[in-house]
Each structure stands twice: as structure tokens, then as C-alpha cells.
């Protein structure tokens, strides 16, 4: 069973994503901030990451950059899921190596589809 790591500091959003992913048949792990996300990934690598940008401590962009800089996670599918809707931020996320950039609020169906597609591509 594929494992999805949800990184967000909004409890209710984590709650909704957790529910959605479980419903879609994935195992779910959660992290509230960037540092704990990185350590979660190191402990038990997920198959996909849903990553917020505005996080306490290091930002989602930092997490993304570090993961892409590490050969072990260079191909780990990462979806940025963020309330930062400006085009420059979107471009930055994609340039840093995110597989997709989805703006909040999002369509739950579209998100689940996207996660499924990405996981299928990898395997």
C-alpha cells in the first residue's frame, strides 16, 4: 500500500487530507512543519508528499529544495498544496522540482486523481 505524507500546519486541512487519502486507499503519515517532515521522510520514506509552503520554521520551498538535492529523494513525487496563489510562487515551486502545484482551496476529486496518476507513473 502506497504511503502519502501530508505536511501542513492547519489541523483541519490535515484532517481532511488524511481522510481523503485513506479513503483513496493510501496509508497516511502527517507532519506539522518542515523539519518534522524531513525527519519523517528519513525514518520511513513515503511514496508521495503533499507539501504546504507556509509552515512554521523552514518553509515548504526549503523542504522541496532539500529533498531534490538528495539523490535518494530526487524522484519522490511531491505535490505542492498551498494557499500561495501567485504565478511567481507557482513557477518557483515547479522550478524547484515539484511534480505539481495545486492552489488551495482545491477540488478534492482532482487532487485524489492527481495523486493516483503520479503514483502510477512512478511504479
Amino acid at each position, binding site marked *: 500500500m502506497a504511503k502519502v505524507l501530508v505536511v501542513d*500546519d*492547519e*489541523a*483541519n*486541512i490535515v*484532517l*481532511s*487530507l488524511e*481522510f*481523503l487519502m485513506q*479513503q483513496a486507499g493510501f496509508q497516511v503519515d502527517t507532519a*506539522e*512543519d518542515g523539519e518534522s517532515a524531513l525527519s519523517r521522510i528519513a525514518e520511513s520514506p513515503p511514496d508521495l508528499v503533499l507539501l504546504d509552503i*507556509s509552515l*512554521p*520554521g523552514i518553509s515548504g520551498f526549503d523542504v522541496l529544495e532539500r529533498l531534490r538535492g538528495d539523490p535518494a529523494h530526487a524522484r519522490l513525487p511531491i505535490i505542492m498544496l498551498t*494557499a*500561495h*496563489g*501567485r504565478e511567481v510562487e507557482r513557477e518557483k515551486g515547479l522550478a524547484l522540482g515539484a511534480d505539481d502545484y495545486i*492552489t*488551495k*482551496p*482545491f*477540488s*478534492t*476529486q482532482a487532487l485524489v486523481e492527481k495523486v493516483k496518476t503520479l503514483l502510477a507513473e512512478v511504479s
Partner: protein
Amino acid sequence: MRSSVVVLTVAFGYLALLFVIAAWGDRRAEQGRSLIGSPTVYALSIAVYCTAWTFYGSVGRAAQYGPSFLLIYLGPTLAMLMAPFVIRKMVRIASAQRITSIADFISARYGKSSSLGALVALIALIGITPYIALQLKAITVSHAVLVNYPQAAELRLADESFWADKSFWVALVLAVFIILFGTRHLDASERHEGMVAAIAFESLVKLVAFLSVGVFTVFVLFNGPAELFARVVAAPELTRLMSLEAVPGGALGWVGMLVLAFLAFLTLPRQFQVLVVENVDERHLKRASWLFPLYLLVINLFVIPIALAGLLLGDVSGDPDSFVLTLPLSAGLEGLPLLVFIGGLSAATGMMIVETIALSTMVSNQLVMPLLLRSRHLHLSTRGELAGWLLRIRRVAILLILLLGYLYHALIGDAYSLVTIGLVSFAAACQFAPALLVGMYWRGANRLGAGVGMSAGFLIWAWTLLIPGFAQSGWLEAGFLDQGPWGLAWLRPYALFGLEGWDIYTHSLLWSLTANLGLLVGISLFTRQSPLEQTQAALFTEAMHPGLVQTTLWQGQTTRGELRALLDRYLGGAATARVFATHPDEAADDSQPAPPGLTARAEQALAGSLGSASARVLIDSVVRGEALNLESILSILDTTSETLEVNRRLEQKSSELAHASEELRAANERLRELDRLKDEFVAMVSHELRTPLTSIRAFAEILRDSDDLPDEKRRHFLDVVVRESQRLSRLIEEILDLARLESGRLTLEPQRLDLVALARHSVDAVHRPQENRGVTLEVEITPETAMVIGDPDRLEQVIINLLDNAGKFAADDDPRVLLRLERYKDHYRLAVEDNGPGIAEDERERVFEKFHQIQRQEGGEARGRPRGSGLGLPISRGIVAHLGGRLWVEQAPRLGGACLVMELPEAPAEKLKAES
């Protein structure tokens, strides 16, 4: 040992040394490495003011009249203090007009008038001759004292034939020396750099010599000033000298002497020469204006001690005028008296050199040349080389001036003391002051007024000072001194118009200057100026005008060839080449017309040698047409003024423009910054709105799409949707508040309210939710009531916000919050403390920034505490500020965490409000 031979050898050696210095100075000047390009040399050259009269006479006067001699030096000190206003202008004019002497200056000011120049030269010649005589007398007497001591140096001048009189030979030797010294150049220009260098050197020599005697007297003859003054105090007749009452003429005498010295310092021909004509750089005045007074102070330091010492020692010292010599002689010294003699010699020769050169320049330029140029018989204009003539005239003049000095010396003899003779000359020089000074500042002063005024002043001077001197020497029947001529008592020289009881100088000065000045002003007011005079008057009075072209511009025409021939004849080839080099024109040959600038330049060069009046005549003889008249000059001046005014306005305009564009730029910058802040704000707002919206949409979709959701979960999710919707509304409300606050459209309804009641009410509102989260809320209110002006709803919003925040940031274990309300001066302070981690010093202001969220190390939400929007504190601060209060963060004094303090001014008493 003190044989005449030794003394003469030393004296001649000294003169030779001077000559070498002068030659060296001239050489350096030719090489363009001027020796005198220093303000110190300039200041030292001005010290030619201190003549033999200072060197010997000051002690003499101090021995007779106490400290009054100092006035002679206070006058020049005063003049130097005013140098930036008066002397600077004189220097500026003189350098622009190539002025050669004070006679030339006055002549140039009054329309380059030959007659006025001649009058000044004549007065100078007659007035200064006694002064030269004085120097001759000083040299002869000091020589006699040196050689004959301890026998008295009796001089019976009139009894001997002139060839047996040493002063005659001194005059002759000096004449030769000065001729070699001052007229070595073929180029008879107005400046003498070598002479100035030598004079500066002489000033050092006399200073050293005088200080040596002073030190010797005070510290060797007497064991320091203490012993000297102790012995003076013991001699009652000497203490009188120490007081200020010994001045002849009393208080009026003081004033008279001060004015006399002040004016003479500016008008004595030699002072004008070194101060104005020889000045190479206007900026030198700055240092000279304090260095020269300092020199005067130093050289006068020992005058009174020497005078007192001489009087104490009695017979051995002889005549007070010779104390400086007799004191070291009486101690049996050999070297020091010789040094003193050289010092006196340097003081005398310095004066004679400069004075004679200045006078000879006047005689040649103002008296002889104009006559020669007018005399048709000489056909001067058709003769060849004339530069040599000029020098020959000057050499003869030098010889005659010195012989005239000798003659006066021989005739008047011992009738007057050194000081008396000096003051007589001072008073003569003062007659130039009205024409000189008034002419520099009043454009209306004219030639006739100057001429008549000066003549009258001179006649009164002669009657009240010069002629009495002759009478006292026995050359005239002295009876008229007491009874007046032909028995006319009101014409008595020392009591003119019945003015009795004044000292003779103040008396003479008063009448002569009154007549001089009165006639100058009176006649000038009622007579007219010639066009050239108007031009010159304008150039002189407006000399400091920045836009002024200080030359007469010629409208007439002449050829380069004619001009060249003229200059060649009067100045010689080298000087002519220098003039033409200023207007190089390859194409022009001698048949071409000379440009006006070249003509003006040629006139200047001629003026530098011949004086302005003669130069004018000569240029007139070759130029066909008129010089620019007053109207043109004035229109140039006016144009310059207008141009300056227009420039000034333009500058003002452009600086205004620059200012405006700078303001625009800054405004633009501010707008840009505001725009950026607005963008940022919109981005932050949208980010903050998206967050609750995300939860709402996600759960709404989940609820829609998941039919098989257990009831419990469904309720939970719906609950989230409701709470997030509330959060969204709250957020929107806050954003609107903030927008209103920032645009100033927030409507507050201020009223008198009791902060105590309001605080309790707020505490009640948050009490339950806080308690639910385990927060202990304490309240500590000291005042009974706390009346402030405020909007109760808004203030409650602020207090609740503070309590909420405190609850959120209180410690996890046993969270505690404390609300305190107390009076502070005429304010009330409401503080909300928590026992959380507190806020770092550098974070304390940032918590008031919009959307700033304090990061908690451990997530707060997990503990069931709601997230803030990051707008509560900025809004609170805005509200408090609107009510005239303040809101800030500090360290909590009681609970140790953060403490937010709201301070509001106490409301004015109700009674007052009711009255108004």
C-alpha cells in the same frame, strides 16, 4: 674697542647684507619663485611701521608720559582688525588699477587727476621730511652715544659746517644705497619684491635687538621684573608713570592719539606702499591682521621696564631716548650695544628705504612726469627710449628727498624730541585720509572737494604743527606762538579759534580734519564730476562688486604698432613683450587695430610705472576716440547686476525645480512602496482567506461525495465547516476594520466610560472559554474607577483580544493570565500578563505588524487553542491610538511571560465637561 671704525664696519656690513637679501629677492621674483609669497613675510614687512622712533623714542616717551606710547600701536591694531573691510578693498583697487603710491591712488580715484596727484605728492614730501630727519637724527645720535659713552653725546648741529656733520654723510650713503636698492630695475614697475624681503628681514633684526635689551635689562641688570618693580614702587616719582593719567591732553589726548595712529597707519606713504602696493595676495591680509598686532605687542613688551630701569639708574643712562643703548653700555658690555645699534639702524633704514622709494615714485610719477609730458619744448613724445629717464628721475628724487631730510634735521635740530617729530608727520599723512577713505565709499566725492579739503587740512597742519617747530628752533620769531600773528589771538597755532588746553596733536588734528572733511563733503555736494571721474569713482566704490571689470575699456582705436612703440619707449622691450603676450594674435601685424583689451592692458602697464594720470595722458595721445564713459561703465555694472540677478533667479528656479523633482521622486518612491505593501497585503489577505476556505470546501466535498460516512464523523466534519466559516467571517470583519483604521474611516463613538467596569466585563466574557482550556485568569484592579474617553465596544474588543492572546501564549503547564489596571500619572494602564515564553526584545514591535504570527515552538492548535489571524494586535493598536493612547509589549513583571500594556489618558473631570 667701540671705535668709530668698528661701528662703521659693522654698519656697512649690515647694509651689504640687506642689499644681498634684496638682490636675492629680486632674482627669485624674476625666476617666478617669489620669496615674499607668504603672509608672514607680508606681516613682517608691515612692521616697517616700527621705525627708529619705536626703537628709541618709545622708551623716551614712556619715560616722560608712561604707557601713552601704546596708543601709537593700538591705532594700527584697530586698523588691522578692520582689514577685511577697508584694507582689502584698497588692495583690490590697487591691484586692478596698478596703483603705484597713495598719491596715485587718490589721483586715480578722482579721475586720474594730475593736479590732485601732485598735491598729494607735495604734501607727502613736506609732511614726511621731518620723519626722515628723525631717522637720520636717530642714527647719528645712536652712533655718537655708542662711540662717546660715557661722555654725553652733545650734538651742536647748527654750529658746524655741514661736511663735519655725520648725519649729512649718513644721508648721502643711504641715498646711494637706496638708489642701488630701489631702482635697480629698468622695469620701473610699482612692486619691489627684493625690497619687501629685506624689510621683512629688518623687522626681525630690530625685534631681536630690542628684545635682547629688554631681557638684559629686566633679568641681568635687575633680577627679574619683581625686583625692578619693587624698586620702582620705592621711588614715588616713578609710580606716577605707571598710571594712565600721564597722557598729555587727558582723555581727549587718548582719543586724538588713537585716531592719529589709526589714520596714519593707512595713509603714511611707506605704510601704503607695503600694505597695499606691495601686497602680492589679498589673502595674506588674513594672517597679517593678527600677526602684525602680535608683533607690535611683543616689541612693546619691554618698553616700560627699560624706561623705568633707565630712570632708576639716573645719571649713567643719560637721555631717555638713548636708554636702550646706555643701559647695556653702563654695564660695560661691548656686543649688546652693537646689536642694539644695528637694531636701531635697521629700524631707521627700513623706514627710510620704503619711505624714500614711495616718495621718489610719487615725485617722479605725480610731479615730474606730468610736467615733462606737458612741456612741448622737450618733445618728449618724439624721443626714443624713455624708460631710463624715469629711473634717472627717481634716483635724483631719492637723493633730493634724503638731503631735504637732512636739511630739516639740521634746521630744526633738537627743538623736538623723536616722538614729537614723528607725530608731526603722522598728522600730515592724516590729511590724505578723507580723500582716500571717503572716496572709497562715497561715489559722490569729487576732485575739487578732495583738492580743496586736503589743501586746507595741510595749511592748518602747517600752521599748527610745522611752523611752530621752526619757531621753537629759533628760525622764526617765537612771539606769535603766544600772542598770535599780528596780535590776532584767535590765530595762535596751539590755540586756534581760542581752543585752549588741548595737546598740540589732538588740537591740530581736530581743526585740520574738520576743515578737510567738511570741505570735501561740502564742495562735492555742490559741484559736478567729469565723466572720467564718475567712471573712476564707480570703479573704486564698487571695487568689491563681484561682476566688476576693473579696467577702463577703450572705445577708441589705435594700431598695435603705435601702442607697441609707446610702450617700448616708456617701459622697454621686455615689459612691452609681456603686455603683448597677454593678447597673442598670430595673424595680426602692427598695422592692425589693437583690441580694446590690449589698449587697457597697455594703460595698466604704463600706470604701474608712471602712475595713472600720466598713463592716461600717454594712451590718449595715441588712441583716437574716447574711453568708455560713466554711462557705459554704469550700464556694464547694471548689466552685471541684472545678469547676476537673473542668474540668481534662474539658480533659484532650477534649485526649486530640482527640489520639486526630488519631491516627486520621493513621492513616487513612497507610492511604489505603498503599492508594494498593498500587493503584499492583498497576497496575505488572500492567503489568510484561502486557509479556512480550503477546509470548508474540502469537508463540504467530502460530505457531498461520501454517502457512507458514519454519523459521528459527519457531525465532526460539519462542525469543522461551521467553525471555519465563522473564522472566515471574523477574518473578513477584521480586514475591514483594519482597512477602515488605515484609511481613517473607522467610526468610533467616544464617550466617558469607566475602564474598571469595562475590564471586569471583558474578563467575564472570556472567563468561561479560558477556564475550559485550563487557563487561570487573575484580576488586580487598584483604582475605584478609571474614567477615560473611549468607544466601549471597541475598547472591549481590544481587551478581549489581549486576554485571548495571553491565554494562547501562556505556559502549557498551569497556564496563567493576569489583568492589572492601575493609575500612572494622569493615565490609566491596563496590562495583561501571561506566564508563557515571552516575546524577544527584537520581536516586540513586529507583533504589531499585519498578519505577523508568533511562532510557537510547540504547535498551539494541537492543544485546542484557536489560531489568530495576525490582525488582532495591529487593530488593537490602531484603536488605542485613535483614542489618544498607546499599546506596547514588555516583559511581564509578575508572571514572567509577555505583557501587553494599554495606556489611556484620564478623562477630564465631568464638572469641566458640564461647564463647557
